């Protein structure tokens, strides 16, 4: 679909939902940051009851193929919609549409929040994404926001909770193991060994919470001003589910997202991040559970990459960015060895 056609369809959709006389779409941009859902941002100038208002919006649309297929956008929409009035910095998300006549595939619409998304990669000179002054403010804010997220009453969100005890760990491991199998590649021995280790070391969970599932550098929206920074949004809720809070903690602190720094998501030393989370009202962090979820974090990333590679191999996407995962997997195998504790000095 051309940009002009997309603009016309979006204008019609918004006009109907807002009861507007006219809607004009401008500054339509396809995002290059995400590797999974298709993301479009744009400005809509709305004329309604004689008043004109311009506001930024973001559309998330189900892709033809991608890293987290098979897709179902509705659960994440339901969560985002329910959180729209919560103090959590999640984007207000008013509409979900499944009718293929509108944008061909299911999508939902969110308000665009201010800020930029620092990417999880070192800068040109190897520097991290944040200055020390920014880290001092953002680190505790990110930890506190996660504690707040984990305090949300998930029972009102119509999500399917796992069984108590080892249920959350067992369910997540089974889901990622199934994705690896579906990709249909030979399983690398270190991955097979790690899957077996995870299966033999399922931790029990004493508290079920709303897990974001992808809470980490790269999904934080940040405004930098006056030498400091503030967290304005948490994005990409497509892996949201009910589970063990340690899953988000380990994912956020994983070496996957340190951007060349020793810090969890480029912000705080992992131990300080966990302490800040507990100080903000999250439960104390259990190192044994963190160890399990840290290994699963790497396995999960490998599963995501294998899914993208399978889509590319099968010709279901022409997005060459998925092919580069072939060159990222060996790093993840090394991270797996590090996280398993097989390489002296490796940080888990």
């Amino acid at each position, binding site marked *: 679909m051309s940009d002009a056609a997309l603009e016309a369809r979006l204008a019609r959709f918004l006009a109907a939902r807002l009861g507007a006389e006219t809607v004009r779409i401008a500054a339509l941009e396809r995002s*290059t940051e995400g590797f999974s859902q298709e993301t479009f941002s744009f400005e809509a100038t709305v004329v309604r009851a004689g008043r004109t208002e311009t506001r930024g919006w973001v559309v998330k649309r189900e892709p033809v193929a991608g890293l987290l297929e098979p897709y179902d956008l509705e659960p994440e929409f339901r969560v985002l919609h329910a959180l729209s009035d919560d103090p959590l910095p999640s984007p207000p998300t008013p509409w979900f549409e499944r009718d293929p006549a509108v944008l061909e595939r299911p999508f939902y619409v969110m308000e665009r929040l201010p800020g930029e998304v620092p990417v999880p*990669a070192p800068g040109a000179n190897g520097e991290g994404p944040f200055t020390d002054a920014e880290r001092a403010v953002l680190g505790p804010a990110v930890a506190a926001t996660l504690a707040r997220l984990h305090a949300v009453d998930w029972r009102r969100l119509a999500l399917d909770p796992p069984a108590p005890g080892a249920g959350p760990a067992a369910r997540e491991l089974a889901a990622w193991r199934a994705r690896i199998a579906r990709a249909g590649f030979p399983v690398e*021995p270190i991955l097979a060994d790690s899957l077996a280790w995870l299966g033999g070391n399922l931790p029990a969970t004493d508290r079920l919470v709303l897990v974001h599932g992808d809470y980490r550098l790269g999904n934080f929206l940040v405004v930098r001003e006056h030498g400091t920074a503030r967290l304005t949004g948490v994005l990409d809720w497509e892996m949201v589910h009910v589970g063990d809070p340690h899953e988000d903690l380990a994912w956020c602190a994983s070496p996957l997202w340190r951007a060349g720094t020793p810090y969890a998501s480029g912000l705080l030393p992992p131990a300080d991040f966990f302490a800040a989370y507990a100080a903000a009202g999250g439960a104390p962090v259990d190192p044994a559970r963190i160890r399990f979820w840290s290994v699963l974090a790497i396995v999960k990333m490998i599963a995501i990459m294998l899914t993208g590679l399978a889509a590319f191999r099968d010709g279901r996407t022409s*997005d060459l960015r998925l*092919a580069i995962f072939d060159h990222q997997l060996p790093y993840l195998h*090394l991270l797996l060895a590090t996280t398993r504790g097989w390489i002296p000095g490796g940080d888990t």
Partner: protein
Amino acid sequence: MTVPVESLVDGAVRTLLDAVAPAVGSRYARGQLYAVIDVLRNLRDRIEERAALAEADAAGAADALARIVVALRAADAAGAADAIAAAVRAAPDGPPAARAAALAAALVRASEVLAALPGAQAAAARAALEACLVDRAFRGIAHLKPSLLAEISRG
């Protein structure tokens, strides 16, 4: 590599034609782009992954599996040792990629066999397996170029 070289080249050509070429405005850049596509198309059937990489993986796996078998026999786990030795014997002598794949599968089999043994009985064999997997991981990154992921993400 996970995806066959031919599939990677085909995918790159498809992306350049479908997604990149329509967005290139300069005539010079467009000519260069089609030259790249021409080079890739003709390269496709003349290249294959280096045999030396598969041979190195196979040699590392064979050495580790031999040490695992010896360690298991020394630990009075003859049945486990026999199971792993059988997987090694089943690996073909060549071509290199097929041998490397079969020995990788034998490493997976060894991991399963060791997981079924008491920790103390498997300890020496596990140490050999873990050392092999670490070596394999380091070999995997040895030929990689610095990632352009940051630029790719920024677009």
